[in-house]
C-alpha cells in the first residue's frame, strides 16, 4: 500500500503516506502511526524505496521516500498477482451453485 501511494502521488514524507492511506481506504485501514516507521524501514532494506531528507512545502525538514525501479517492478508484479488471485477466487466462488 505504501508503494502504491508513492506511485500515485510521487515522493512523499512518512506522515503524508500514512495520512493518504488512511484517507484512501476510507479509514477502513487505520495504520497505527507507530507501525508505519517499521514498515518504511523494511521497504528500505528490501531496496524498494529510497529515503532522503528534504524540505516540505511549509519549510519543515522531513524525510522523503521515493519509489525505486525495483520497487516499481515489485509493485507491478504484486498487483498482477493480486488481480489474478482475485479473478480465480471470483470464478471459484461463483460456481458453487449448479456446478458440475
Amino acid at each position, binding site marked *: 500500500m505504501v508503494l502504491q501511494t508513492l506511485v500515485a502521488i510521487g515522493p512523499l*514524507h512518512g506522515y503524508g503516506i500514512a495520512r493518504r492511506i488512511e484517507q484512501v481506504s476510507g479509514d477502513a485501514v487505520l495504520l497505527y502511526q*507507530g507501525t508505519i516507521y517499521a514498515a518504511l*524501514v523494511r521497504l528500505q*532494506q528490501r531496496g524498494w524505496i529510497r529515503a532522503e531528507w528534504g524540505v516540505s512545502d511549509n519549510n*519543515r525538514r522531513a524525510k522523503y521516500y521515493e519509489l525505486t525501479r525495483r520497487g516499481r517492478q515489485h509493485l507491478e508484479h504484486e498487483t498482477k498477482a493480486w488481480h489474478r488471485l482475485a479473478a480465480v477466487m471470483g470464478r471459484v466462488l461463483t460456481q458453487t451453485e449448479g456446478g458440475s
Partner: protein
Amino acid sequence: MYRLVQRLLAVGRHRALDDDLNEELESHLAMAAEEYRCAGLSTAESERRARLALGGVQRARDEHRRARALPLLESALQDVAYAMRGFRRRPVFALGAIAVLALGIGVNTAVFSIVRPILLLPLPFANPHQLVWISPSSEEGRSIGTYTGAELDELKLRTRSFSQVSAYYAFFRFAPFTLTGNGDAEALTGTMVAPNFFETLGVRMAGRVFSSADASASGFSSTAVVISHGLWQRRFGGDPALVGKTLSFNFGPATVVGILPAGFDFGSVFSPGIAVDLFLPLPAVVPAVWGNALSTVARLNSGGTPRAAQAEVDALMPQLRREHPDWGAITAQVTDLNSHVNGRFRRSLGFLWVSVAMVLLIACANLSNLLFARATARTREFAVRSALGASRGRLIRQLLTEGMLLAIAGATAAVPIAYALVGAVRSNTTLGIPLLEWMEVDSSALLFTASAALVAGLGSMALPSLRISRQRDGFVREQPGATTAAPLEGSMRSILVISEVALTCVLLVGAGLLARSFLNAINVNLGFQPARAHRARLNLPLALLSIEQTVRRSAMLDEVTSRVRAVPGIEAAAITDALPLERFRGWPAGDPGQIYPPGRRPSAFLYVTGPGYLRAMGIPLRAGRDFSAEDTLDHRAVIVNERLAQRLWPGQDPLGRPVVTSWPGTYTVVGIATDVRQARLEEPSSVFQMYLPYTQVPIAAVDLVVRSPLPASALAPAIGSVLRTIDPDLLAAPLQPIDDLIDRAASPRLFLARLVTGFSLLALLLACVGIYSVVSYGIKQRFYEIGVRVALGATRRQVCRHVMSGTLRATGAGIVAGMLAAAVTARLITSMLYNTSPAEPTVFVAVPLAVAGAALLAAYLPARRASRIDPVVALRTE
C-alpha cells in the same frame, strides 16, 4: 538475504539511526499539529491532538528498532558490553577465573596432543589397519620376537593372507655404521631392511626404494643406502641434489638412492627413543649365522583380518615343525601393528588423560563456585533488573554470556600453556615413547580446546543459573545481614568442596604410587654399578672388521685397553660390544653333553668383552675369574651368569664345564658372574647371560667402558687424545655416563610420574583456591553475624573456628571419600606400578595429611581476617 546484510550493518549504527528516527518523529508531529491548526484548533490543542493521533511514540520506536536491525544480536552485544564493564570493576575475580580456566584447559589440550598419536590416531602409514606384526611367542630357545631368514621365507611363500611380507634386522644396534668424509666422523644407528620394506609400509620417498640388485652379500655393507629425513636435514642441510650422490662410510662408499620423507621416522615406531638414520638392504639370502634376527612386518590383503591371518598361520606352523625339526616349536602370532607399537602405553596414557580430565573438573568446580558467589553477591543488581522488566531468561543469558567470555579468554590463554608443555615433552628426544614427533598442538587440538572451553563455560554457569531461576520475586527480599543463606546454596557449595577435595586425593594417590614405582625402578639392584662408570662408542677401522683380522683387531683393542688404563684417574677400563639396558642379542648356549629338545637349546644374551669388563662395570664375580691373556683361540673361554649356570648344571659346579654356541668351538666356563638387569629395569633377572672374549669371537660395534671417580669432563680430553694417537677416527661419540642407560630405561616411567605429579599438585592448588574462596564468601555473607558475635564477646579463635567449621567438615568428608575412591582406583593402575602395592601405606598416609594441611591453611587465611572484623563496622553495615 539482502535484508539480512542491511540489518547486520545497522547493528553498529543504532545511535545514528535513533537520532534519525527522532527527527522524523518530530517532523511528523509538527506536520500533524500544523494540520490541526489549519483546521482551526489552538496551538496547544492541535499539538495535543497531534500527539494523540501519532500514538505511542515509544512503541513506534520499538517497532522501528525491531525492524531495522537484529534485536537478538544487539542484546547479545549489550550483554557482552555489560559483562566487560563488570569484569573491569572486579579484575581480581575475572583474572582469577581466567587463570583457573587457562590452567585447566591448557593441560588438557597438552595431554590431548600427547595421547592423540598413540590412543586416537592410526599409525602414520598408508592404510595402517592392514599392517600387522608377526612374531613368535616368547619361549626358551628363541630371541625376542624374531625369525631366521629361512623361516621368514617359508612364511612368505606358504601363506596367502598377506599381500606383502617384509622384515628388518632387529639387532641393529650392534651394526657399526659410521659416516666419514667431509666433516667429523659420525656414528649412525642404522639397520638393514628388506627391499620391499618401505613399500609394505606405504612410505613414499624421494629417490627410489631398494631393488633386488642392491642386496649385498653380507648385509653390513652396501653400495646403496637410504637415509632418514632427519639426517638429510641435519648433516646435509636438506641438499636437494643428494639423491644419487656417493657418500663414504666406514664400510665403504655408497650411493644415496633414496631419502625418507619427513613424516616417517623408523625409530619413533619401531624403537622409540633411538634415531635410526641409515638403511641398508638385507641380503637376498640372509646368512644363517645371523640366527633369528629378523623382525617381521606384513600387510594384509584388502579385506583380510588379523584373525583370519592368524588362523592360516596356525594351520601352517605344525607343518613347518614337522618339515624342519631343528626349528623347534616354531610359532607365529599375528597382531595388528598399532597394538604392537602402542599397546604397551595405552593404559598409562589413558590414565594420564583421565587424571588431567579430573583437573579440568576441579577447575570447573572452582569456576562454578566463583561464579556462584558472584551471582549471589549481585542479588541486588538482578533484583533491580528484574523489577525493570528483565525476564529470568534474560538474566540467565547475561550470566551465560559472562561465563562464555571467561571461557573464551581462558581458552585463549590456555593455548600457549599447551604449546609450552607439548614442546617440553617433544624436546626430550630420548624418551622411549613412540610417535613423539606426532604430538603437536594442531587444529584438532585447538578444536578440542574450544569444546573444552564451551563445556567449561556452560557447565560452570549451571549452578549460578539455577540459583537465579530458583528465586521467585523475592530478589530484593534478601538482606545482606541474613544469617543463613538458603540451605540449598550451602549444600551445593559443600558438594563442590567435597568433590574437589576427593578428586585431588585420588590424583595425589595416583601420583604418589607412580612416583614410588619410579623410585623403586631406578633403585633396583641392577647387578652392576653405574655410578662413576662411563662409556664411549668406538669406531673400529673397516679393515679390521672382517673375521680374518681377528688377531690384529684383538691386538688393537688390547692396546686401547692398556693405554686407557694408564690414564691417571682411571680405575678400570675394558671393551664390550653390548651394554645392559641398551642393546642385546641372544645366542643359544648349551652343554654339548646334554640333550635338548630340537631347537630348544637355552638362549643367552651375549656380551663380547675384553678382560676387565666385569670390574669396569662393577659386576661381582661369584666364582672363577675374568678373561685374561690366556684365553686365546686354543683355550676358548666363556663366563656365564648364575642363572645360566643353574639352568645348565643345576646344583653342580659349573667351572670347567663346556659350552657350545653359535660360533664354532667349545668354550670352557672360567667364571660365574652375577645376574644383571638386561632388557628392562623392572624385569627380574631370570635371563641367561654369557660373556665371550673378543679374541675368540667377532666383534664389530665396540664400546669402551671406564670406571673413575673423576667426572666425564675431566676424563674426556685425556681419553680422547689417547685414542686419537692409536687411530684418529677411533672415538665415534663423546664420553657418557653409564647412568644415562638407567635414565633412558626409566624415562617413560619418569615421564608419566612427573606429569601426573604435576597435575595432582595443580589440582591441590585449585582445590585450595576453591576452599579459600568458599570460606571468604561465607564470611562476606555472614559479616553482620560475625560482628554480632564479636560484640557479644567471642574471641578471635572462636570466630576463626566458627567460620572455618563448615568448610573443614566438607573437606574432611572429601578426604574420606577421596581416599576410599583412591583405594579402589589404585587397583586399576596396578599394572603400571613396579614393586609398589596399590595400597602403599606411605602414600595413603602422606596424601590425606598433605591435603588436610593445605586445606587448613587455605581456610585459615580468610578466617584470620574474619576474626579481625571490627564489630562496629559490621553492625553498621546493612
